[in-house]
């Protein structure tokens, strides 16, 4: 896997707007952004309504994912190009999801919606119609998904990468600076986790930094790229972006995204928690 397999630029997308085997999919944190306008012929996936189980806290299951993609007119042999706002934050989450259910050819538009907008490229309001398909998903690829027990046993052994902002990591805030401050029972981070905010992997225009810059970014913060890694954030979306960087761009072999993330871990009874700006010892506590 290298960046040419998993990233396309705006010119490539422009040239494939009318290619029936290329499906553009917009996935935004702000799920109303698509209604305002979107890239021509792009369909929408709503990360909350379409990708989360409506009752229990979990993803839609394999059958629900098949139904979703069939209804959106996405076929197994289509090239899916995902894009969204905020450095492709939620588009990267959807990418991870497509990989979780075994989609063959999926890519991100480098820079996402923001770069497209800042270059004043065409955006439309017209919603395309795609004929329904019969999509077949694979069982979840558990090699890229971490659960709470994996995280507890990773303390002090496996790379733990906390990709939230420094204020969330240290325990000053419970959520990103633009969201209401609610969620977990306790602030802080998983002991021994390194804090490398997800957004450091992106340039101002939302494109990914070079492989060399990305490698130095993680190594300088003490991440041993030869070891296994679990990435987490608050609800698993920003860490999907970091999963994309480590697994898809840098080709690190064993990287898992912990989608339960801090809203789960920070509400568990009896697990160690570290407060403050340092990774801390495996026992956690206040620094």
């Amino acid at each position, binding site marked *: 896997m290298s960046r040419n397999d998993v990233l396309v630029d705006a010119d490539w997308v422009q040239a494939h707007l009318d290619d029936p085997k290329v499906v553009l999919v917009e996935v935004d944190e702000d799920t109303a952004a698509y209604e305002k306008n979107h890239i021509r012929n792009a369909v929408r996936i709503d990360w909350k309504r379409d990708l989360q189980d409506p009752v229990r806290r979990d993803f839609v299951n394999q059958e629900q994912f098949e139904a979703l993609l069939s209804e959106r007119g996405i076929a197994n042999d289509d090239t899916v190009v995902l894009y969204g*706002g905020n*450095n492709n934050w939620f588009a990267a989450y959807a990418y991870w999801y497509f990989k979780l259910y075994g989609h063959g050819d999926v890519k991100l538009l480098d820079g996402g919606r923001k770069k497209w907008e*800042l*270059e004043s490229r065409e955006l439309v309001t017209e919603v395309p119609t795609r004929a329904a398909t019969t999509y077949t998903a694979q069982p979840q690829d558990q090699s890229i998904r971490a659960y709470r027990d994996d995280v507890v046993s990773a303390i002090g052994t496996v790379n733990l990468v906390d990709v939230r902002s420094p*204020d969330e990591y240290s325990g*000053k805030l419970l959520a*990103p600076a633009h969201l209401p401050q609610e969620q977990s029972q306790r602030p802080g981070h998983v002991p021994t986790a390194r804090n490398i905010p997800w957004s*450091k992997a992106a340039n*101002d225009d939302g494109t990914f930094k070079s492989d060399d810059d990305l490698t130095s970014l993680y190594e300088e913060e003490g991440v041993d790229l030869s070891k296994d890694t679990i990435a987490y954030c608050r609800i698993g979306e920003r860490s999907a972006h970091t999963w994309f960087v480590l697994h898809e761009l840098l080709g690190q072999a064993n990287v898992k995204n912990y989608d339960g993330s801090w809203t789960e871990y920070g509400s568990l009874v009896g697990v160690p928690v570290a407060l403050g700006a340092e990774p801390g010892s495996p026992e956690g506590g206040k620094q």
Partner: protein
Amino acid sequence: MAKETVIQGAISRDGAPVTGYVRLLDAGGEFTAEVPTSSDGAFRFFAAPGTWTVRALVPGGTADATVEATLGEVAEVALAV
């Protein structure tokens, strides 16, 4: 919330609202958050008290402003590109 502050404002060009993106950078210049503006160029962040840089990104321009956020107060910032 008792522990945070609100930083809010709007982007304009020649006095007219302009839409785009706003980035919040901490005192060390590190990226903290980004939001798209509303249709009238407005934005809002929740942040810890301290000194912040607010950066507007719109087609054909950027603008920075420094803002001091104080506990329990709303910090208003206007960005002209």
